């Protein structure tokens, strides 16, 4: 057990898996000598060589096609998009080949795709996106979005172990900012299980990624007793845990960093309205980014991203309903 950053936790989990399982290899742009744009694989190429830490050409489809083919041949590829935004260049491969191959042809595709995502540092419209909602609509994929160092390590291990394609969304804003105790030994965190970040009785906040901390800050500033459910996995999502929380509090707030219309928050709010209709004492509420691309200038990006104050206002509104 040691205190680690979120980034170190991912890096450690991945390195441990590479040491124990020769089938695991890394592929992506600048992941080798450079250690990846965020240095998650720093030193990996020295340890594992250039055929297990592969500097790929600037070819997102070749990277993911490569991962799929290698996975079908029994390897356990861990691919990296330099920024999650660039996964749009591999969209077809992911939704057409990787997501459907097991279902159609019986051939599982056990790869992990690491996606440094999220905003908060003036990355602008192409280095700040949270594309998890788009993928959470595609049957056959799994999408995980850890918020803590402990979960980041446990989920990267689970993702590698998973027999299918797993999209691993790492929030860049947590990389070096969030620290926590992380066990040294290998462990897994189950995919598809939410975590109660904070217990409470009055309002349930369902969220994931960096927004867990925004919710935490906001909860401190309201009188109500707030339960924060860190979803951890978006697809499949832990409906049972969310239902249980909402049945207890009778109030639902969904919070995500991505834009509003068609965001995954809609799925959560709709499902709860459908399945816990009688339990709700207030309309479900979503706090999200507005329907625009991500803004660059700090003054705009700040207005774009859900802030603590937005969550506080929403919590009050829901609590007082």
């Amino acid at each position: 057990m040691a205190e680690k950053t979120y980034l170190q936790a991912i890096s450690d989990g991945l390195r441990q898996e590479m040491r124990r399982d020769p089938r695991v290899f890394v592929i992506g742009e600048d992941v080798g000598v450079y250690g990846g744009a965020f240095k998650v694989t720093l030193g990996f190429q020295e340890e594992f060589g250039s055929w297990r830490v592969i500097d790929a050409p600037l070819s997102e489809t070749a990277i993911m096609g490569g991962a799929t083919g290698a996975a079908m041949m029994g390897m356990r590829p861990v691919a990296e998009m330099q920024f999650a935004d660039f996964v749009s260049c591999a969209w077809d491969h992911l939704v057409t080949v990787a997501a459907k191959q097991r279902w159609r042809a019986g051939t599982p595709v056990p790869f992990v795709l690491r996606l440094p995502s999220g905003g908060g540092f003036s990355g602008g419209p192409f280095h700040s996106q949270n594309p998890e909602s788009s993928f959470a609509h595609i049957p056959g994929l799994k999408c995980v979005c850890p918020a803590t160092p402990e979960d980041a390590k446990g989920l990267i291990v689970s993702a590698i172990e998973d027999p299918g394609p797993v999209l691993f969304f790492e929030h860049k804003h947590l990389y070096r900012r969030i620290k926590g105790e992380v066990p040294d030994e290998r462990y897994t965190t189950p995919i598809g299980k939410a975590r109660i970040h904070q217990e409470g009785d009055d309002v349930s906040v369902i969220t994931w990624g960096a927004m867990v901390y925004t919710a935490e800050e906001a909860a401190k500033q309201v009188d109500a007793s707030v339960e924060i459910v860190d979803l951890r996995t978006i697809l499949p999502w832990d409906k049972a845990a969310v239902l249980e929380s909402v049945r207890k509090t009778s109030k639902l707030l969904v919070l995500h960093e991505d834009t509003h219309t068609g965001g995954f928050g809609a799925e959560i709010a709709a499902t709860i309205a459908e399945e816990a209709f009688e339990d709700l004492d207030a309309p479900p509420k979503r706090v999200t980014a507005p329907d625009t691309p991500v803004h660059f200038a700090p003054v705009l990006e700040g207005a774009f991203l859900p802030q603590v104050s937005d969550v506080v206002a929403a919590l009050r509104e829901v609590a007082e309903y």
Partner: protein
Amino acid sequence: MAIARVAEPSGSLQDVKEWGLDREDLLQIYRNMLITRGVEERGHILYRQGKIPGSFYTGRGNEAASVGVATAMGPDDVGTPLHRDMGVHITRGVEPWRIFAQYMGRADGPTQGRDGNVHMADARLGLLAMVSHLPAMLPVAVGCALAFRIREERRVAIGWSGEGAMARGDAHEGMNFAGVRRLPVVFICDNNQWAYSTPTHLEYAVEHLADRAASYGFEGVVVDGTDVLAVYREAKRAIEKARDGGGPTLIECQTLRMEGHAVHDDAFYVPKELFERWAERDPIERMRNWLRGNAEMTDEDEEQIAAHVKKLLNESLQRAEESPQPDPATLTDGVYAAPEDLDTPHHK
């Protein structure tokens, strides 16, 4: 400007022996081509009988290209054949009854009624099921080769593309990556002169698509795709070169798509004379003539083969018709893999 090498036509029995084929192999190639065409012809009948839902595609004219390449593959090699490559499935040993079951959407088709047409494959035989999106499986073949290279196995992956689909980014990204890493992969371009209704001059502006190989740092070869032995020879060379660490090759097999794009298409846009000209180079007829002229194939041999094929197809059809409809209770099964799914032979 032509850059690729234009392959010689096939030679004598002596030549062919040097490439590793004995007389039984040659008859087997011929038989596989007949089965390939037979499966598709029977499929067509099934379609007209209303027994095949959706659309129906064949690879008539491509039997030599598909059987020739598949014959050159080693037992542990893998490939991602496409919708004109029935001969690959046949040569690798997929039983025709399962193909008919697939056509008809029955439970015993390789996709159990989930997908149709030749959107199928048996991974235990080293084949990976194509998706419609062309040529999305080409980078996947490259990924297979990557696995072989990482593990230093002497295995080769074969990736197919039509000449039309070579215009897509996937072809480029896959071939470029394979070239950079000198991966053990062979690319087969089935150039049948049409992409649906689109002629080649609207698809590419280079003389031969195989010329593109040079721009990825490997060899390009143009071969007459109706000459099964020439295709075999070039595929064999390329596969063994890849196996020995010599990197990829792009082989362009020149044919004509002898029917419409799919069963609904009468190919009105293809000049009649073109069909007539290429009909004279029917790949099966060519091999038959070659066998009679070079390998002493007798009337008796032929009759025996024909009888075998006919029996096989009849029995296969019957067996397929007996295959049950898939069970709607399985509707949501298998979207996600279970850990046990990984323990299949191809996952080593």
